[in-house]
């Protein structure tokens, strides 16, 4: 699982890294703290673009191929927040567990 939690990085905002490879998210389950804003760094290792989308998080962002993008989420209440890749929704699925 290619998860790197950079800890306190930018103004106390923890950074969590997610990779997209072969239209799958790594890791596909991410644990983040409740009541805290975090920064997701989504790296697309595929050559094709993908769109990170989550209705529960109210987030939607295109991640170009072989590129990376940042998405801020939270503060969130404890619970599960699914996300998916809109371009390849059958394979690119994951969830954020807030605890």
């Amino acid at each position, binding site marked *: 699982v290619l998860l790197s939690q950079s800890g306190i990085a930018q103004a106390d905002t923890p950074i969590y890294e997610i990779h997209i490879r072969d239209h799958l998210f790594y890791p596909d389950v991410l644990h983040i703290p409740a009541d805290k804003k975090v920064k997701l760094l989504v790296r697309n290792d595929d050559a*094709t*673009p993908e769109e990170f989308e989550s209705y529960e998080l109210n987030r939607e962002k295109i991640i170009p*191929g072989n590129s990376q993008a*940042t998405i*801020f989420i939270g503060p969130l209440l404890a619970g599960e927040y699914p996300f998916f890749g809109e371009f390849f929704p059958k394979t690119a699925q994951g969830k954020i567990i807030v605890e």
Partner: protein
Amino acid sequence: MLLNSVILVLREVLQAALIFSVFLGFLYKLGHSRAWVLFALMLGIISGYFYASNVALVTDWLEGRGQELLGAVMHLGIYLLILLFMLSLSNYDNPRWRKVMTVSVLLGSLFSSLRESAEVILYSSGFIGIPSMMHTVLMGGLIGASIGICVGILFYYLFVNLHGKRAAWFGYIMLLLLAGNTLSQFSQLLMQADLLPTSYPVWDSSSLISEHSMLGQLLFELFGYEATPSRYQVSIFVGGWLIALMILLHPKYNFKSLFKYP
């Protein structure tokens, strides 16, 4: 893959189709030239292609906030252009305001088609190297685009076949819904870029209308429905609606300007 292509392209096309149908409906009723809308559509698709080609560059702008900022500026622009369009409707007898109407329709249509077409182009481009899937994706995209365009045509004919007060009410309500939609997306993009604070949801209506459902998707495209909106999102949405309503209800606003047209 077919169903996914249909839904994805339908979602993108539907929003632009609704804006186009409302603008075209008003222009038809007023006898105003509609050629600008077609011109804006073509310009929007070309601009969308350039946006899609440079999306990696845009993404890296402003410490990774480029996509959100550009999208937010476009959505705020569409909202302001809808307000300008409302004002020009009230003052249509003035030649200057007719020019304002042309510009607001041109830019509003351009911005709405640019963002939607860019996403469709990006999505399709991902399958260029996969011939076995490209056919399915193109077929799904064609079906999705056709459904979206048909819904737009349906709204257009519904509008132009209404007369007098009914036409005016229908047109203005559609403009208000679309204005709310653009503001909802504007605030969401600012929150995503951390330029607007995110609060806990004001309500959770996902058990009533899920954003995953077809109805939820349709309502999102129509007026930016969110099952779990934040306090700031609701405030901006309501504030934007109040501004639009204040314009419409202002004593000097010629709400009846459309009544005299067939």
